[in-house]
């Protein structure tokens, strides 16, 4: 399967190096609509959500990202990527006020609060319990100025949580596409199980 990394800014190379290790996966970096058209899966990497949001809008990439899902593909947003694919984004003031600095694409029925654990001094590493097809497992979770998924809609499945908060969620959208949002960075670890679950566990038979 062909998986692209949205190559605007952020942990692009790290996702690329991780996905390259998966069997049967062809990875590429994409930064224009043409590149997005050929994909079965797309990773929106960690980075700054304000920056990514502005550049997605400026270069009209939103449609191409939606196209991946419409074709039955998988879109996986990590950290900033997770912020970008939800319905609503909240800032430091909590869920009282929508953060207008980011324009989310609304691909998955979740709301996300930015920098919800605090600043860099509050960034943390912790084990995260992931509910894989083969059973529960613990994977290393790297959370950097991470957001919190503050609401999950109907049909959104929790794949992992940390201290009661969902940190990896998945929704199958009508037509067969899959959208996954995660607030931690598997690309900064050697553990590939989250990628395998997201891209190989669910989608390989479909595509």
């Amino acid at each position, binding site marked *: 399967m062909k998986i692209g990394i949205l190559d605007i*800014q952020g942990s692009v190379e790290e996702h690329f190096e991780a996905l390259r290790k998966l069997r049967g996966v062809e990875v590429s970096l994409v930064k224009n609509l043409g590149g997005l058209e050929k994909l079965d899966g797309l990773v929106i990497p960690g980075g700054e959500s304000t920056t990514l949001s*502005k550049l997605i809008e400026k270069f009209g990439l939103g449609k191409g990202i939606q196209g991946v899902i419409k074709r039955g593909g998988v879109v996986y947003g990590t950290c900033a990527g997770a912020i970008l694919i939800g319905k609503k984004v909240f800032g430091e003031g909590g869920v009282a006020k929508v953060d207008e600095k980011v324009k989310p694409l609304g691909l998955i029925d979740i709301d996300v609060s930015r920098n919800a654990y605090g*600043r860099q001094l509050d960034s943390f*590493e912790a084990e995260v319990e992931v509910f894989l097809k083969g059973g529960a497992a613990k994977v290393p979770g*790297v959370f*950097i100025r991470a957001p919190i998924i503050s609401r999950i809609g109907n049909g959104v499945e929790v794949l992992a949580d940390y201290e009661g908060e969902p940190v990896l969620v998945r929704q199958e959208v009508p037509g067969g596409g899959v959208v996954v949002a995660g607030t931690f960075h598997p690309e900064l670890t050697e553990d590939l199980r989250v990628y395998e679950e997201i891209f190989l566990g669910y989608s390989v038979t479909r595509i």
Partner: protein
Amino acid sequence: MTKGKTQRNTPKLKKGLAQMMKGGVIMDVVNADQARIAEDAGAVAVMALERVPSDIRADGGVARMSDPKMIHEIMATVSIPVMAKVRIGHFVEAQVLEAIGVDYIDESEVLTPADNKYHVTKSDFKVPFVCGATCLGEALRRIDEGACMIRTKGEAGTGNVVEAVRHMRIIKEEIAGLQELSGSAQAAGMKKFAKDERVPLALVEGVVVDGRLPVVNFAAGGIATPADAALMMQLGCDGVFVGSGIFKSSDPAVRAKAIVEAVMHYDDPNVVAKVSEGLGEAMPGQEIDELETKYAERGW
């Protein structure tokens, strides 16, 4: 990672924040209004400082850490990471910035050095550090002291990119030089380099295997145009700092946005051409030879 335990301020987290800034532009700002303009333009972080380098050059005198009040205001205004500068070796300024809770500290040659023998022992701090370098040895000395991000020194406040280019090329050439050796000659070469540059051999070996520094490496010092930024990206930098280049130009908001877009599409001359149109005046530039003080010569 210890099983089941939550850990903070680990090297992975410190280096990781810089990884999230890759492919982005970090902009110098001197107040909350400028910080907002930078964030709106798509900056991945802002560097809070009292005066941009070109003003420090013009004003002369001792340049120090900024007023904590100003840094607080900037932190309250923007949602992107906030960095701030300390003088070389001034570990108490670093303690102050850590107490304020900034996201990154720049131990910077742009400020007047506070210690002519020692840099800050950066591994003692919870907040990650970025440091300037002019060559591979200097970069590795800073990393050995605990820096989690490197930037070229360039020559700040000049609007002249030549020194940033020179520093980036030197780092690349030194890495390539060690990589070209083989067998026992390479082992000896790495050992000699480590000894001459006073850095651990393991750091040198890692650089030779990876073909790059073990931390994110940005360009800084003299970047004034979208083409300057794209040049540094094509030379292999992970992102760029723009200091005086934005807020000393005639239209900062427009230029800031153009530089952000040029960094994303650094390898596409059509985009760089398009974003370079009608930006107004760039900051006034200076010849390196005519400078009274070369900031890049501060630090070692």
